């Protein structure tokens, strides 16, 4: 949020006592923030649900609905639970402070509030909120709305569940030499355009991008939400990717730049979908033989001289007419047994 970045935030002061309310608001306004006031918990929740509030300063002792009840309501509300709450109270007893923190309060400031301490706590809380907003934005940007919602709904836990789906790997052919022949800025710009096009194709067919690394990407069809026609979706995505690259190449040719080519490998079957990594850093992905095979098929496109290769399970799962040419049994790298490989020719 740019507002927070500039040090100006929208704050809500909740206190039934007018003197406290006015004094706290005054101190906050002197710090450059914008302040809304509420005289009890009920009014505070209504204001919060209106949206746009960056931080709440909450009193505990209030008629109608006290601060504990407000904290409980905020914690139980998906829309509100990320809004940081600083409890400002002269309620005595450590157990009350502990209860606030347990109910999700960010911090506890005893009244009368020291303005210097107040400023520091607000700064820290807003910074934390800014990071959380940024994280949510990152999740949204890299993990698709489906994964973001899955995370919000069931929380984060390493481990996975068995799903049936298709996995797609793609990368740019000869990317390393291309990257060496042009300035890094141009490579970044190329990658950004490339990813924009590929992401569009993938999400347009119900897939999610699980990983991107350099010029390669991995997409999943069938997780976290089941997808009935995952084989068709993956293959149609591949065809659209090829088509978009052709259009992109026409533009590049006009600018005197060399064409790029991509290779795509698709495999289908059972796999384990979920969050892998560590508790600190994890990604939503799929693992299993199916995933390995898709990756190997993508690598094999170089030797086969074809843009899109699929496995037998994907071929068998196709419900719509797609031009497919059997290439026979191929021993791909990392597999001891030969697997039947098919090249996707074009849409029929």
């Amino acid at each position: 949020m740019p507002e927070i970045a500039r040090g100006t935030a929208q704050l809500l002061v909740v206190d039934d006592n007018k003197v406290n309310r006015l004094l706290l608001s005054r101190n906050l306004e002197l710090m450059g923030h914008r302040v809304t006031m509420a005289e009890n918990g009920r009014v505070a929740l209504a204001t919060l649900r209106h949206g746009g509030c960056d931080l709440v300063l909450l009193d505990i002792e209030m008629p109608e609905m006290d601060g504990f009840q407000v904290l409980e309501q905020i914690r139980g509300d998906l829309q509100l639970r990320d809004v940081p709450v600083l409890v400002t109270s002269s309620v005595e007893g450590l157990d009350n402070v502990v209860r606030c923190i347990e109910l999700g309060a960010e911090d506890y400031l005893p009244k009368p509030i020291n303005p210097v301490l107040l400023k520091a706590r607000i700064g820290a809380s807003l910074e934390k909120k800014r990071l959380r907003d940024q994280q949510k934005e990152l999740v949204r940007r890299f993990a698709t709305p489906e994964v973001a919602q899955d995370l919000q709904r069931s929380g984060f836990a390493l481990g996975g569940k068995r799903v049936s789906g298709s996995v797609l790997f793609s990368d740019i052919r000869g990317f390393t030499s291309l990257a060496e022949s042009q300035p890094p800025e141009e490579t970044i710009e190329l990658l950004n355009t490339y990813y924009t096009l590929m992401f569009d194709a993938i999400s347009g067919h119900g897939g999610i991008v699980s990983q991107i690394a350099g010029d390669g990407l991995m997409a999943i069809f069938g997780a976290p939400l089941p997808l009935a026609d995952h084989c068709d979706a993956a293959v149609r995505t591949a065809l659209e990717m090829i088509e978009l690259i052709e259009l992109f190449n026409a533009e590049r040719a006009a600018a005197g730049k060399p064409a790029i080519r991509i290779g795509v490998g698709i495999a289908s079957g059972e796999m384990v979908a979920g969050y892998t990594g560590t508790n600190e850093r994890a990604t939503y992905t799929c693992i299993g033989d199916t995933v390995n095979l898709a990756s190997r098929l993508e690598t094999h496109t170089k030797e086969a001289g074809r843009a899109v290769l699929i496995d037998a399970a994907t071929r068998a799962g196709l419900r719509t007419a797609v031009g497919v040419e059997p290439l026979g049994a191929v021993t791909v790298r990392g597999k001891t047994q030969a697997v039947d490989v098919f090249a996707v020719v074009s849409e029929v």
Partner: protein
Amino acid sequence: MTSPTIDRATFAELEQTAGAEFAGELVDTFLAEAPIMLAELRRAFDAGDADAFRRTAHSLKSNGNTFGACAFAAMARELELGGMAPMQAAAGSPLDALDAEYARVASALTELARA
């Protein structure tokens, strides 16, 4: 040695951080609100409303601390933490004592705010 009705350092700090003009306005607000709260404290006591009694005493304590009215805040605090039961056994009325202290606080604050 008796402690002053208003702790000058606390009041000066309030004026310094929030601005003298604002501090004056805040005193006016307190002088308007406090009699209502003192009346509410009596009402709660007469009605046996322990929750409202505690909450109102708490509010008065909090405001007393804001302006540096230390004795007033301490009396309100005793009511907040002690509840209504000790009140009934008390010699003389703690509510009358609080009213009397408030009168001293009000005149001291009025004087300070005008200075």
